[in-house]
């Protein structure tokens, strides 16, 4: 339970932490687009480089960032294995047995896939490592403001998100407490078959649900008591501001996307030109 590193905030002060959350969100979208547009080692390498730079500037330990991959490591290895064994390309198979064929293309393709998945997970967790949940929802609310024109309840959505995020640690603590209480009564969550394990969750789930409802009621009352009425007459305590740091990163994001797209369209040609210039 305590090893959930995905979606955690890492509280230090750094260049990346101080960036405007809106920009970080947009950058994340651009970065993810770039990961999927990239189709060569050069362009993926560029993405990896940017991510490493981002981690270095954020002062979040590399180990911590890599740990976020741990949750999906099984998925990554599984897809890689499937792709290596079943990918049928045009080139000569290197190895064949029963229904399995391993080709050069298959190996290259699955290496790409693994890189993409790892990049995807690490860059998303970089966002949550460096942005407080409050800043994040503020950013999302601000980015979604245009939707207010079509009467989409942006403010309510942002509030729901921030409450949900705020309740994650509370409910995790609660789960831990209930789990301990049931453990003290001899409950066993670690052994037995799948049916037995699922049945073992019931003594945690029911008290947890009850307490979640209770907390929701209390929170609703507390908000009523302080005259909360949605976004009418509401001002922000912290205004989001766009600074020189954000400008640099925005330009960097645009350059990354452009670079990756160019590499995809012109590929080797572009590299040839580049190498020609250098040599």
């Amino acid at each position: 339970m305590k090893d959930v590193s995905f979606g955690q905030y890492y509280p230090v002060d750094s260049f990346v932490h101080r960036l405007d959350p809106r920009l970080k969100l947009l950058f994340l979208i651009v970065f993810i687009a770039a990961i999927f547009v990239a189709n060569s080692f050069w362009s993926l390498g560029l993405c990896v480089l940017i991510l490493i730079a981002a981690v270095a500037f954020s002062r979040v330990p590399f180990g911590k960032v890599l740990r976020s991959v741990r949750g999906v490591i099984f998925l990554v290895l599984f897809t890689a294995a499937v792709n290596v064994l079943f990918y049928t390309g045009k080139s000569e198979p290197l190895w064949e047995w029963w229904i399995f064929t391993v080709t050069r293309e298959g190996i290259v393709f699955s290496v790409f896939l693994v890189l993409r998945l790892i990049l995807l997970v690490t860059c998303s967790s970089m966002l949550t490592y460096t942005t407080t949940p409050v800043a994040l929802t503020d950013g999302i609310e601000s980015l979604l403001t245009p939707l207010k024109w079509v009467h989409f309840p942006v403010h309510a959505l942002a509030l729901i998100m921030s409450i949900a995020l705020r309740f994650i640690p509370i409910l995790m603590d609660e789960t831990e407490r209930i789990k301990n209480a049931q453990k003290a009564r001899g409950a066993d969550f670690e052994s037995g078959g799948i049916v037995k394990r699922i049945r073992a969750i019931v003594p945690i789930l029911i008290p947890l649900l009850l307490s979640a409802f209770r907390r929701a009621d209390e929170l609703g009352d507390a908000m009523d008591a302080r005259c909360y009425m949605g976004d009418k007459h509401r001002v922000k305590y912290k205004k989001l501001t766009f600074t020189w740091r954000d400008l640099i990163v925005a330009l960097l994001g645009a350059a990354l996307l452009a670079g990756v797209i160019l590499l995809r369209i012109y590929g080797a040609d572009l590299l040839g030109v580049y190498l020609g210039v250098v040599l």
Partner: protein
Amino acid sequence: MRIVAEHLSYTYNPKSPFETKALDDVSLTIEEGEFFGILGHTGSGKSTFVQHLNGLLRVPSSLRGYREKKRDRENSSRTLLQVGDFDLTSKKTDFRALRKAVGMVFQYPEYQLFAETVKDDVAFGLKNFAEKNQKPSAEEIERAVREALGAVGLDYSEVAAKSPFDLSGGQKRRVAIAGVIVTRPEILILDEPAAGLDPLGKQDILTLLHDLHRRWCKTVIIVSHDMDEIAENCTMSAVFAEGQVKYCLPPRELFQKAEELSALGLDIPLTAKLCRALEERGVHVDCDFTTEGFVRAVLALKAKGGRA
């Protein structure tokens, strides 16, 4: 069973920005048969300590390594945690047997109820702790549940078939306690057993704990920051502060240290305050700080001097 802890330390979230040292070299012995009170401020480490006693928190595994053990043997500051015959620093301890012998009632235990009927909920621990090859029969379960509910002052025929969520707050708490004592633990640990109850409910729960101590569990340990509770009930008490044991004294000696306690942010019981107020006016009352003891001491003075 006797509880011996020596040089016990515990850190939450080690090597991270959230690192907090909850226990710092704690040594404490709790004798069998004691009604033991653990006092301390929020965050003083008292809950962390009691969670070690039935293996919900483990002695950090780094301390079990070969090199550490060797070093510990050399400077004789080895971490030791024993509950009866269970050695909790060992990996091979049978934690199921330990948890059966050491019952633990958490804060607000009524929030751990989950079953459809009170009977099922109380029987939960009983079924969990049963040996694989000898499941308790329906009659055995019924008898044990009836006894446990009786021990917490509830009527089996009245509540057993009800949903635990239909009971009142005080009744829920009793059911939760019954669910722990149903396996007849030798040691019963309660974290803030009276928290959130009205004064009468508090009194009831403490009377109940006295009954349990006399007839059901040899050792009772309560964690509390209500000084009156400790003064009234406990035979021995320990004060936790900043992860360390500051004092381990019987209440009658402990509550004479009003200044030291207030430096730790702790109060003294009402009886001790009265004794001090009388002392300031030149009347020395020698009592054990229970209400009964205080009244008796005052009456004795009155008999001797004619007026008090």
